[in-house]
């Protein structure tokens, strides 16, 4: 109980006071805020204003529920060994329930969940990773004898907002792939009366969650979302739009196998099935592993893992022009921004793929 009381006291102080008590200087916090502003596609000057607002913010209670998932999303967000911008998320919030991270287990952990929901009813943030099993009334996925479905519907009632982490929570993801034996659904298929932010990706970029939480704390609202419920700051442009290999697409220079001259020269991977032109995510700019690289930079096309039903859209190695991705308007848009050489190469890719399909 003493520990519980201390945690509540800590939540009442501002984030600035919380960090100052831990020896974090305002200059260090300014650096953190400027980096956050950078992640959120805000102008660098916004970092100063963000630092001011964040310092005055109270740390919200956060409940994180894992449903039909592989723990890859949690791994992505927590794997940092040293303090990083992503790990500072745990300074910004009071994480009151997370099965993988919490020390409590069994009845004690369930009691902690229920207590946090009661104490912060209407104010807590609900984070979900994994899809929601709905088959057999949700019996395919249970925790503590209760279905994920019942947990979600109960906890959603008292949530200020819900953040669906990863493609499974956002769209159903791999558990929903054909033939979807568990009746997997997205969080937004179940909850209709609460604001929901989708952070898709398999896994999602960890800094995106930090950015969404920072926006909530700084502005007291959720960030602007696209029609699929994704924050526009991170999902506003396609991988293709921001890819450093994009100039090669415009020049009609494509790798045609994974070991030809084009591949060695770092040319565009469109003909090798890259889904970058129809995939909205920030991998090309934020990148992975502390900004080291992203799949295309490592020589493999984008799989489109942050788009709905990416697993059921045919081979990852078919060019978009012959795959089941997007629609004519989307692909037309992608082609329109390229030059004639790019479009001609796309046509050549389609012809080549037709030959492969026909066995010529």
């Amino acid at each position, binding site marked *: 109980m003493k520990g519980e009381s201390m945690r509540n006291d800590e939540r009442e102080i501002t984030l600035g006071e919380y960090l100052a008590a831990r020896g974090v200087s305002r200059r260090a916090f300014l650096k953190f805020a400027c980096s956050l502003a950078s*992640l959120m*596609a805000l102008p660098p000057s916004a970092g100063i204003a963000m630092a001011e607002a964040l310092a005055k913010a109270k740390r919200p209670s956060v409940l994180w529920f894992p449903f039909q998932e592989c723990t890859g999303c949690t791994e992505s967000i927590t794997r940092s060994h040293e303090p990083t911008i992503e790990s500072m998320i745990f300074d910004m919030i009071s994480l009151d329930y997370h099965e993988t991270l919490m020390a409590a287990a069994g009845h004690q952990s369930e009691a902690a969940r229920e207590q946090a929901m009661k104490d912060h009813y209407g104010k807590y943030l609900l984070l979900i990773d994994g899809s929601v099993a709905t088959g057999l009334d949700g019996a395919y996925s249970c925790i503590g004898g209760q279905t994920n479905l019942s947990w979600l519907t109960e906890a959603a009632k008292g949530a200020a907002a819900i953040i669906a982490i990863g493609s499974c929570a956002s769209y159903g993801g791999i558990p929903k792939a054909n033939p979807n034996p568990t009746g997997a659904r997205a969080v937004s298929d179940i909850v209709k009366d609460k604001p929901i932010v989708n952070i898709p990706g398999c896994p999602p970029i960890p800094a995106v969650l930090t950015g969404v939480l920072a926006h909530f704390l700084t502005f007291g609202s959720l960030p602007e979302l696209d029609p699929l419920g994704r924050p526009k700051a991170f999902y506003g442009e396609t991988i293709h739009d921001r890819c450093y290999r994009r100039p090669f697409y415009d020049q009609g220079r494509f790798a045609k196998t994974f070991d030809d001259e084009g591949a060695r020269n770092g040319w565009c991977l469109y003909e090798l099935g890259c889904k970058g032109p129809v995939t909205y995510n920030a991998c090309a700019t934020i990148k992975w592993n*502390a900004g080291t690289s992203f799949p295309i930079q490592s020589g493999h096309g984008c799989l489109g893992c942050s788009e709905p039903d990416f697993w059921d859209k045919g081979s990852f190695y078919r060019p978009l022009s012959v795959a089941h991705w997007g629609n004519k308007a989307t692909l037309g848009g992608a082609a329109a921004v390229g030059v004639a050489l790019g479009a001609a190469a796309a046509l050549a890719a389609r012809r080549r793929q037709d030959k492969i399909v026909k066995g010529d």
Partner: protein
Amino acid sequence: MSDLRDTAYATAILHEVADLLAKLAADGSCGAIDLRAMPLGPADRARLEEVLAQGAVKVSVDAGGPSEIFETVYPGVWWTRHRNDAGETVSEFIEVTDCPQFLKSQPDDIRAGASGLRRLLE
């Protein structure tokens, strides 16, 4: 020719820096470019580092991990790289200003320092 194609983004950034520097010279208005928001390839980065080479001032700051800030050979153009304690780059900017905000002492830190020093002397 191949180099020019490989460094298209660097060329665009350098033109933007030139425009910002002209503004700074004209009316003192500051600006910044977020390098992590740009899809830079290895050749782009090499080109930027070649043109915006280190000038007379280089500063190291230890606040939430090391930060390196240097003025380029073009006075008023600063290159700022923030790292975390593991040495990973968390943000990187080209700032066009007379002095980056991050180098200035922050008011809250000044107040805390003033009271701390007073307590020490009492």
